[in-house]
């Protein structure tokens, strides 16, 4: 009977040799992201700025003109209207300033009457928006810090440093794509970025765990002295964990893509961010994090080899 088995561990794949190309590619992506962010910027949703967002739906397809007219009837002019849904039967409108309580009430009553569904209305004051943005940044920073400390204690500092570099890259990649596509940054997006960070670290740790195991196995037999020896261990570990990495990413991708394509409008961008993060995370843990650790570790070993030598020569 046919058995599905990727069997990467037996294949002759070298993930270490082209590391300079991987590093170059990674730096290129980061540069592109930095340029995008500084030119396009981010499309901050009302969660992080201020204003009012109205989501509504109707039985029939909507047009922007129709919606503008309905708003005009209650004396309001939205700053932006986007249509959504399979047949444009859903739409959302944004106002830059927060609407007054009475305006919101009028709006709810009017749209309920016209379209037969009560709309969603959320308003955020500038102060709250700023606080949310700052809090999210602090939370992300602290979460990263906590993870590094844990990894540094459980493994060693260099693993933690490489892991955090990889996760920052993953988060940055997701943010850059959102900047490129000008997708809205809202509260669920922050949750998505944090999930990405969680997965990224998860992935990297599984690989590092295997590297650590193989390194100590090797050290039982002989000292690790040269780069090739260490590179061989890293490559072997990567291949050993490759099937697991791919299977895990695939299964999580099934769930994330399903939510992205079939889920409610409200979490589409959340799921999309996760999909992006999974792709970035797989890339970084396969082609980036372990290679980075290898280069750093090699330097550390060299330094240690050089250090005691002069002392021994002292008369």
């Amino acid at each position, binding site marked *: 009977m046919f058995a599905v088995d990727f069997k990467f561990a037996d294949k002759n794949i070298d993930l270490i040799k082209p590391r300079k190309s991987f590093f170059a590619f990674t730096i290129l992506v980061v540069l592109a992201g930095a340029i995008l962010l500084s030119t396009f910027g981010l499309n901050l949703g009302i969660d992080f700025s201020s204003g009012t967002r109205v989501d509504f739906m109707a039985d029939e397809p909507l047009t922007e003109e129709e919606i503008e007219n309905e708003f005009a009837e209650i004396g309001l002019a939205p700053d932006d209207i986007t249509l959504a849904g399979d047949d444009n039967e859903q739409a959302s409108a944004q106002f830059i300033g927060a609407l007054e309580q009475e305006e919101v009430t009028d709006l709810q009553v009017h749209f309920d009457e016209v379209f037969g569904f009560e709309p969603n209305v959320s308003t955020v004051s500038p102060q709250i928006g700023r606080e949310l943005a700052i809090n999210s940044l602090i*939370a992300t920073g602290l979460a990263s810090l906590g993870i590094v400390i844990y990894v540094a204690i459980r493994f060693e500092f260099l693993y933690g440093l490489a892991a955090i570099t990889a996760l920052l890259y993953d988060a940055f990649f997701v943010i850059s794509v959102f900047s490129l596509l000008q997708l809205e940054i809202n509260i669920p997006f922050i949750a998505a970025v944090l999930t990405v960070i969680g997965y990224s670290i998860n992935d990297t740790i599984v690989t590092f765990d295997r590297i650590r195991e193989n390194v100590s196995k090797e050290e039982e037999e002989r000292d690790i002295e040269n780069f090739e020896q260490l590179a061989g261990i890293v490559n072997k570990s990567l291949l050993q964990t490759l099937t697991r990495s791919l299977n895990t990413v695939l299964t999580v991708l099934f769930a994330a893509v399903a939510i992205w394509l079939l889920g409610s409008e409200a979490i589409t961008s959340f799921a999309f961010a996760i999909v992006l993060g999974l792709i970035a995370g797989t890339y970084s843990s396969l082609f980036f994090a372990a290679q980075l650790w290898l280069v750093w570790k090699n330097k550390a070993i060299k330094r240690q080899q050089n250090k005691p030598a002069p002392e021994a020569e002292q008369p």
Partner: protein
Amino acid sequence: MGTKWGRIGAFFAIVIALGVLISQTAFDVARSTNLGLDLQGGFEVLYELEPDDEGELTEDDIEATASALNERVDVLGVSEPSITVEGEDRIRVQLPGVEDQEEARELLSTEANLSFRTVDDELLLSGEDLEQGGASAGFNDANQPIVQVTLQDGEAFGDITSELYENTPPEDSLVIWLDYDEDEHSFYDEIGEADPAFLSAPSVPQPLYTEDVSIEGMESLEEAEFLAEMLNAGSLPVQIEEVYSNAVGASLGEQALEQTLFAGMIGVALILAYMVAYYRFMGVIAAITLSVYIYLVMILFNSIQGVLTLPGIAALILGVGMAVDANILTYERIKEEIKQGRSMRSAYRLGSRRALGTIIDANITTIIAAAVLFYFGTSAVQGFAVMLIVSILTSFITAVYGSRLLLGLWINSRSLNRKYWLFGVKERDVRRGL
């Protein structure tokens, strides 16, 4: 050695028992889950409390305001309201499933400070002089809707009215205000208006030594009832300002729930199918433990009074990913050991043990991230974080111990020995002679 049928029997007994338990109770578990307002429609508002004239906002003020808001929410009859104090000066009110959102908004934000003043806006009596719960709506002799309030001290009211009674019109009027604002309101400005800001300004016909006062000037019985309810619920001790609000229409919420649940089921079905296709027999075990996992997460989540929101559903499904990962890590290890030529039993034991350390490290890092989110996040993100933590803890139980128990029964029954294809391992890949 022959097959130990007892273990296989135990396996089926456990699976059937779980199947019966889940199919019998899953419906009730699903029904008793508290849905967030993004899934069933409703209304959420964040108020900022403004300090009083002395510029101070004490903890008592905040507590009193929260409890006053609570009383008012009771009037609305919402089944699962949530009123939480956030930070130092904010109160978040969440009313999932509230039917009349406009009424809710008005009811919450009206201060309901009743005051009796002279025509020169001098304060005579305030809401504090009212008997708690003593307000009711009704009709007067002219069949006009009125609100009847009970005062704590009839003597004091008698003294006030006898003083007013001696004045000449219009100074013999007792002006009754709702939410009087010193900067905005004065009797002489409003008296000329068609719709004055005060409720009524009856002239005092005689000294009134009574505790019962009726307030006229209601436009309808509904308005009278509304005011009576507000007065009974108690006034807000400080002014509040709306800084964030989120209203979700019931049908939009319902649609979001249906779509996301559907998407989630498709996603989980794909995961299970893939696991069975790749890991064969172990995949079937994974499918069983994953189903138990989802069931257990929902029970745990309900038992800690969690509120399921859209991000929460996302966390649940992503938690499935974490649980799957724990399975995959273990199975890959077992396959590796089988290929090394070990017996099924020792491959299973070694594989499970070696995978455990990795699983623990991976899960702890995610819990760290989730805990930070919970601590710093706002309510929607907190829902996500709680679900993620519950998911990870549960996945640990099901994917590690549950999976081990079920797989162990089969392995130890010896019926699987050398049946490599059941594990997705090709026989020719197995290294001989170990």
